[in-house]
């Protein structure tokens, strides 16, 4: 009985019946779902998962291991949302279902530990993240990683751990928040008033991309404010069933940025941008924050979104022509599916004089990175990565551009694992090189 009432209390995290009823099970999502493509089982499809969630919500089906497994098997890439003409918000449903699964003890302890401890205590805390990153940096600098890889020492413990260790990106020598001043001014006149969110992983592992972003923005006449007090956006926590904690971070960010005067809040991480644009929705029932969140979200722009809106200005900064290698573009899920940004980055790339752009087959298919999916579900992620690398290989391109740190890390790892000689860059880093 107790258990029963506990479950029914938990069920409240699921979206209400009107939202669950919105799926008309037409099946248009099936061909876009990476997990359905693998198993060809309806329960691994968005349509099947929604039906299961609805049945659980209505008390017609009990929570089960199989249910939990399918919710965690989902990459949450949201390709189905792009494919869904009815506008079903699948991502929200599956994320809510993950909360349910975690709370009711169906998620393996080790994953839960990773999700909770690593995300809450390390990623979300700037200081801890920096300390951990620094330790990791030392480990990498001492070439311990190469030693471990060469000797295969980790293999003794677990073959998977040995592989996962290689997924860890190289820690930047210096973190970007120490390189970027709180207020950066362009050389000439100020044309745009912008603010910058430096992210958590971007700050410690992809610091150079952050620095490149600032440089490009300044070239275009942006004054860039980068408040030191900002925190992680919270997206990794929310996507992994810890929405409450994510909202705490959201409020903190809103309180931080509200003190400054800016027109655009630039993000160069697809996942962060998508999530910060969603603050408005997530906090709509919070009387204290609803209005502030709306304003905050309305100003968030992915850096490619911003650059493409100012495409003529950008073009004027390029040289007349460049000698360039063939290039392709991979759509990060959180750009193309969550933010519907796919034309903009291509427009920027194509505007570069002398560019050889080759469209990537299945460019919008998830690379398997998917937040921390490639760590907690290494084998499943690898299958998606294999497919991505095969498509990249077919383009013959020497450079892959993509707008999300997770994808950059994942594709770099895949290129090494499957012997593909390519450079993986954020579009903004590529542009920075051209503008120099």
């Amino acid at each position: 009985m107790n258990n029963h009432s506990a479950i029914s209390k938990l069920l409240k995290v699921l979206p209400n019946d009107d939202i669950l009823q919105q799926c008309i099970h037409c099946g248009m999502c099936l061909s876009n779902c990476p997990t359905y493509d693998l198993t060809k089982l309806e329960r691994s499809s968005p349509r099947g998962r929604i039906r299961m969630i609805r049945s659980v919500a209505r008390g017609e089906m009990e929570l089960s291991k199989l249910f939990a497994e399918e919710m965690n098997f989902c990459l949450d890439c949201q390709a189905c949302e792009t494919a869904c003409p009815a506008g079903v918000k699948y991502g929200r449903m599956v994320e809510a279902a993950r909360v349910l699964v975690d709370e009711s003890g169906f998620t393996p302890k080790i994953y839960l530990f990773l999700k909770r401890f690593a995300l809450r205590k390390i990623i979300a805390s700037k200081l801890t993240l920096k300390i951990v990153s620094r330790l990791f940096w030392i480990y990498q600098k001492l070439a311990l990683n190469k030693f471990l890889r060469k000797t295969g020492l980790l293999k003794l413990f677990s073959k998977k751990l040995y592989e996962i260790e290689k997924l860890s990106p190289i820690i930047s020598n210096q973190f970007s928040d120490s390189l970027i001043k709180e207020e950066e001014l362009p050389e000439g006149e100020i044309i745009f008033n912008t603010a910058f969110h430096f992210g958590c992983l971007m700050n410690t592992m992809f610091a150079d991309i952050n620095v490149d972003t600032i440089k490009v923005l300044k070239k275009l006449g942006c004054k860039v404010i980068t408040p030191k007090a900002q925190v992680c956006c919270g997206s990794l926590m929310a996507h992994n069933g810890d929405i409450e904690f994510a909202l705490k971070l959201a409020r903190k960010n809103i309180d931080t940025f509200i003190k400054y005067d800016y027109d655009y809040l630039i993000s160069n991480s697809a996942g962060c941008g998508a999530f910060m644009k969603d603050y408005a929705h997530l906090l709509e029932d919070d009387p204290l924050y609803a209005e502030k969140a709306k304003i905050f979200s309305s100003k968030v722009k992915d850096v490619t979104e911003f650059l493409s809106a100012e495409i003529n200005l950008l073009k004027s900064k390029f040289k007349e022509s460049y000698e360039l290698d063939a290039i392709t573009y991979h759509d990060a899920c959180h750009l193309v599916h969550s933010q519907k940004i796919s034309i903009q980055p291509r427009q920027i790339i194509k505007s570069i004089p002398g560019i050889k752009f080759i469209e990537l087959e299945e460019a919008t298919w998830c690379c398997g990175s998917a937040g921390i999916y490639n760590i907690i579900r290494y084998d499943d992620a690898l299958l998606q990565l294999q497919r991505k690398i095969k498509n990249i290989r077919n383009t013959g391109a020497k450079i892959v551009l993509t707008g999300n740190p997770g994808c950059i890390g994942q594709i770099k790892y895949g290129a090494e694992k499957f012997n593909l000689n390519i450079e993986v860059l954020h579009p903004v880093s590529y542009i920075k090189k051209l503008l120099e």
Partner: protein
Amino acid sequence: MDALVKNKLKSIVGSENFYDSYEDRLVYSYDGTPIFNQIPEAVLFPEDEEQISQIVRLANQEKFGIVPRGSGTGLSGGSIPTDNSIVLVLTKWNKILEIDNSNLTVTVQPGVITGVLQKEVEKIGLFYPPDPGSLNVCTIGGNVANNAGGLRGLKYGVTKNYVLGVEMILPDGRFLRTGGKNMKDVAGYNLRDFIVGSEGTLGIITKVLLKLIPKPAKSITILAFFDKLIDSAKAVSEIIAAKITPAMMEFLDNTTINCVEDYTKIGLPRNIDALLLIEVDGKGSEVQDDAETIKFILKKNNATNIQVALDESQANILKSARRSAFSALARKKPTTILEDATVPRSELPLMIEKIINASKMFDVIIGNFGHAGDGNLHPTALTDERDPKELDKVHRAFDYIFDEAIKLGGTITGEHGTGLAKKQFLEKVTGPVGIDIMMRIKKAIDLNNILNPGKIFSISPKCEGSLPNKREHIANFNE
């Protein structure tokens, strides 16, 4: 279904192809059809013809139903389980077996996705025209079983016009191959065409041989807006009367336009009453000439704006926007009930009026769109299945629409099939003799009524609920 039978099934397909958890049965309890659903006893993924044949023989012994299924996008409930049935899923049979360049044919397994097949043959300059709205998801097996239509039906016909041969397992477990690569073949009854559109009630399709045609060299796509719905219908009639056969001539009303625009954001005006999406294709100057004539007719019929797609990608954006219409309408209300009443093309303007009448008379929101060129409309009721009163209004509106369509010489379904959703209306179209012959055929071929039972029509004795299938299930007379 008792465990003994389940074990027998498991030993036929292997435990890795047998699913009977509640979760798995739940997610095969529906297809693309609203309202109807039923949980099957088990879900099976057979690997070859022999396994299917054994399953069918077992079904005859143990008296359970078999519901064949592709991607489950059907709109008449054809792949929804019925009482005491198992679902046989064929999506893993997805190989293109042969493309024959000399005979212009392609041989496929039934689980091949229609859109994938099209892309594959187009790479070598060939063309498979049937293009149902769900072409990126639906399977050829499902298309053949339902004689699926699509946008290009007007000029290129429907699935049956491209099926040259079918292989299948019959309801008694025997294997049948009918048809072949001959362009002409009049040996005996035409079993092949008879199988097309049989909705899985006469056999389980295991292989399909399809005809291909050369890909049209050129196409022009035209978009026209109208302030008055009736003007668009008149334009359609006039284009056909001018002896032009466009590859497609699609119509969307205001409700549909707004929903499609909400989804695609391609800039369709929200205040117009109707739009037409027309494509002409072919070779040489003829295509341009036809396009000019069409533009002239559109203008004459008060089109407020006429646009021509600049290139193929723009044309494709417009066409996929149109294909999203049905699902996009779901943005308005929780349940969308899509029908496909079809009338002779000359009656189109009248039929559109009748649908508007129905909407007013029964107080139901109806979005209307469809293949205007071949008289195949998709009046779609926007409602909420959780409210019985709302559903009742919808049913009455559709009763009226079907009756009016039949009065105009039309039919209750142009391309979705009868399945579960429309079987109560079937006799209105076929008449008592027609339905009697159909039922006799079914009984002759499927003695024990095991293949997709309860679809198209109910085999007597008619009763509410399921029949007891075991002696112990029969209640005592005194109880």
